[in-house]
């Protein structure tokens, strides 16, 4: 029988994991479960629900650090940060529409621990860093049932191994996180977005690279091919009926105005330019962050690829050539380095075409974000590692979870 255990304290988490080790009972760790269907499907019967370990522990806006328990709802974190005019710089995505979960204008569900465990970042990843760059310290209970901590509550810290980074993105396979300290930053005073219309995918890689190589401190660079642009809620993008490349600048008013104009001038040779501010700009970056524009049709299988930025369009072309007709829609973020691919459904989600394309164009990784259970199992979900690295990852897993009870098989076969 499937059981979900929902402890209220870190001590109870330690007791539960100790018990699970003794009983050889594997546990899947969850917060609100919003990302439970990403990557490899789980075959674990029991769940350890950490959403009861909740609450902001310490938040002094002047220190730009927030400490909260792992189960704290992101909505609570966001509210507290909003009140102080601050934010999580890495733009946590809201994948409700993408993953077919109940969607709406309200604050999405999700916990801080779930966000850290999955290391998901939005468009500002390219300038501000990923979730992993903002985790300053962690407390958790490893698969040995032992509570431990790493890092601290200050930004500059090299005391001991940086286990906080290892925990970030480990999908609950090394430890149950109970408390996290994150670096937070003030919200930018102003935001402007420059649009360049009509660039082909390969040209858009150049345009984004030029923007990112300029001195204008671009904090977001995405490209929407024409069919994807047509789905945008922003009228100036939807109605243009061509591909749109967008560059975002943030900061004090005089600075963003100057940089917007400079970018428009410098990139004018690549196509007609336009600019967005206020709500339209915010809407576009939300659509990109959340991969909403490629969410339809719901049966499409969705891959998320991280590649060298200039390789983005080439990787897509390689997938199209290897699997003719499979590519339904594409969205480029991170200056071309993040490729969202919506593919026509196939039993193996076109895994070999996708992975070969990544390998042949400078390396990187591809993760199957949305597909049925069988396809996710066949496609292995997360990008496989070469043998020496896989063996090392296995030893790392065993060092934290020797009995293999935390999310076994969640990230890779057999670990």
């Amino acid at each position, binding site marked *: 029988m499937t059981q979900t255990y929902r402890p209220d304290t870190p001590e109870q988490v330690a*007791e539960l994991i100790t018990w699970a080790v003794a009983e050889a009972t594997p546990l899947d760790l969850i917060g609100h479960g919003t990302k439970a269907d990403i990557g490899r499907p789980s075959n674990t019967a029991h769940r350890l629900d950490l959403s009861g370990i909740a609450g902001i522990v310490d938040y002094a806006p002047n220190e730009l650090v927030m400490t909260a328990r792992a189960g704290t709802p992101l909505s609570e974190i966001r509210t507290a940060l909003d009140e102080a005019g601050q934010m999580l710089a890495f733009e946590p995505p809201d994948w409700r529409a993408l993953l077919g979960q109940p969607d709406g204008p309200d604050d999405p569900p999700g916990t801080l621990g779930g966000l850290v465990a999955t290391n998901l970042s939005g468009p500002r990843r390219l300038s501000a860093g990923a979730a992993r760059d903002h985790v300053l310290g962690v407390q958790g209970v490893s698969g040995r049932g032992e509570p431990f901590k790493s890092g601290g*509550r*200050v930004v500059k810290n090299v005391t001991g191994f940086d286990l906080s980074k290892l925990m970030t993105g480990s999908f609950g396979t090394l430890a149950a996180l109970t408390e996290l300290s994150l670096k937070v930053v003030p919200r930018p005073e102003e935001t402007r977005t420059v649009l360049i219309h009509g660039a082909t995918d390969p040209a858009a890689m150049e345009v984004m690279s030029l923007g990112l190589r300029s001195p204008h401190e671009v904090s977001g660079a995405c490209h929407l091919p024409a069919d994807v642009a047509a789905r945008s809620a922003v009228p100036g993008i939807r109605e243009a009926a061509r591909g749109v490349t967008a560059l975002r600048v943030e900061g004090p008013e005089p600075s963003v105005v100057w940089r917007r104009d400079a970018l428009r001038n410098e990139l004018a040779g690549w196509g007609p330019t336009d600019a967005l501010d206020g709500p339209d700009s915010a809407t576009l970056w939300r659509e990109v962050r959340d991969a909403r524009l490629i969410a339809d049709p719901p049966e499409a299988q969705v891959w998320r690829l991280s590649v060298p930025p200039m390789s983005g369009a080439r990787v897509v072309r390689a997938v199209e050539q290897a699997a003719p007709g499979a590519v339904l829609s594409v969205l480029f973020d991170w200056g071309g380095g993040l490729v969202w691919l919506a593919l026509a459904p196939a039993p193996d989600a076109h895994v070999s075409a996708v992975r070969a394309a990544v390998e042949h164009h400078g390396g990187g990784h591809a993760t199957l974000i949305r597909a049925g259970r069988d396809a996710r199992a066949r496609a292995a979900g997360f990008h496989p590692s070469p043998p020496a690295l896989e063996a090392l990852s296995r030893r790392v897993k065993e060092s934290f979870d020797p009995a293999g009870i935390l999310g076994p098989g969640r990230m890779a076969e057999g670990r």
Partner: protein
Amino acid sequence: MRMPEPDAGVIARRVAIARDLQRLVPGEGVIVDEDALRAYECDALSAYRQPPLIVVLPSTTEQVSTVLRYCHENGVKIVPRGAGTSLSGGALPLADAVTLGLGKFNRILDIDISNRCVVAQPGVTNLAITTAVQDQGFYYAPDPSSQIACSIGGNVAENAGGVHCLKYGLTTNNLLGVEMLLMTGEVVRLGGKHLDPGGYDLMGVVTGSEGLLGVITEVTVRILRAPETARAVLMGFPDTESAAATVAEIIARGIIPAGLEMMDKPAIHAAEDFVHADYPLDVAALLICELDGPEAEVTHLIARVEALATGNGATSLRVSTSDAERALFWAGRKAAFPAVGRISPDYFCMDGTIPRHALPAVLTRMAEMSTRYGLRCANVFHAGDGNLHPLILFDANVPDELERAEAFGAEILKLCVEVGGVLTGEHGVGVEKRDLMGTMFNEIDLAHQQRLKCAFDPGQFLNPGKVFPTLHRCAELGRMQISGGSMPFPDIPRF
């Protein structure tokens, strides 16, 4: 400094080991001559010295791999070494270990402006990366004060920082990929020109692992476009409280300077006497705040910083009007360590980090300690991110001054932890802070770190005696006590 008991068997085999290594690394790649070895007996923490067993200087990844495999099979320890600029004794040799120098790995392999990254061998200096791309308008952001000499591989091993890391992050935030060799000689590649790992963030733990996990043979870093403009504001305050309050307000208002540094009175005077930067001498604290970016932004933010400084009672305020003047503002700060070196035969440079709000209290307590230990102390401080560099002045030739200086330093670091900070912000634990790890971490915390070490290097051949106060065998660390029985906590909610 207590180091692990050397393996007499290995020392006895020194000649044979050297002969074998000479076969693996032909030419001038192996140093056995005792006078030549002395050049490697310490790093920049020169209070601790130990000639290495042998030094080997390979020039290819293949050679590093065969040396590691040989040492692994023959039970010989390895101390990896970059440029030897560690301030924490990270590259301090061991009597029974081969020092593996990466100095011959000095080539930049790929400058990829379109993807905004550089691929370099680990022995390339930090500054050489910027030099290689500056004609195209780019630079590498982390700028440790040893950047002329320190190597990029060493920067990765120590997760080096610098003045610019307030805005642009430490090494870990600017690193895209590494090629690393395990002690077995196996090659693993982590990251690349893309962002984020596809599995566990092993690059994240390798960065700052102080040579305990592997030997880095290639590094990919991101480069940034040089800002259009940079200007600095020099602000003098009658007391450290008002300087600290100004720092807090600058940060809280959402201004992220490219650098925000503080110096106290002894540091100001030492620096001024040395480089004549025209610092005000009648102030208790000096702030240097540099802003970079588009001209429009810099002008806008400089005005705001000036207003904040005036509001907090600054008695001296100057904005640089040229790059030469900005460089002069920085000259004193950048020369602070050698400047202090001129006024004292020896000094220790400490490296704790504290929450910014604790600064005035910590400075007061340090002044009190200075009196109690009878040793002078000058403070330079990466104020924007709370990273303190107290310089403890002593004379090693005066009986017991070294011991008093060590005790003074330890007390400062314990104070940093006590107020919610950490032992080291950017210099690393090495041997210097090794025995203080227990003030920040308990045995279980440390065991989790040491088990990670075991996953990378089960035989514990890489840089033993650094970072961890106690060496435990991996088998002992890995043992897990399993208490059997039924579910003992009926009170946990289940669904």
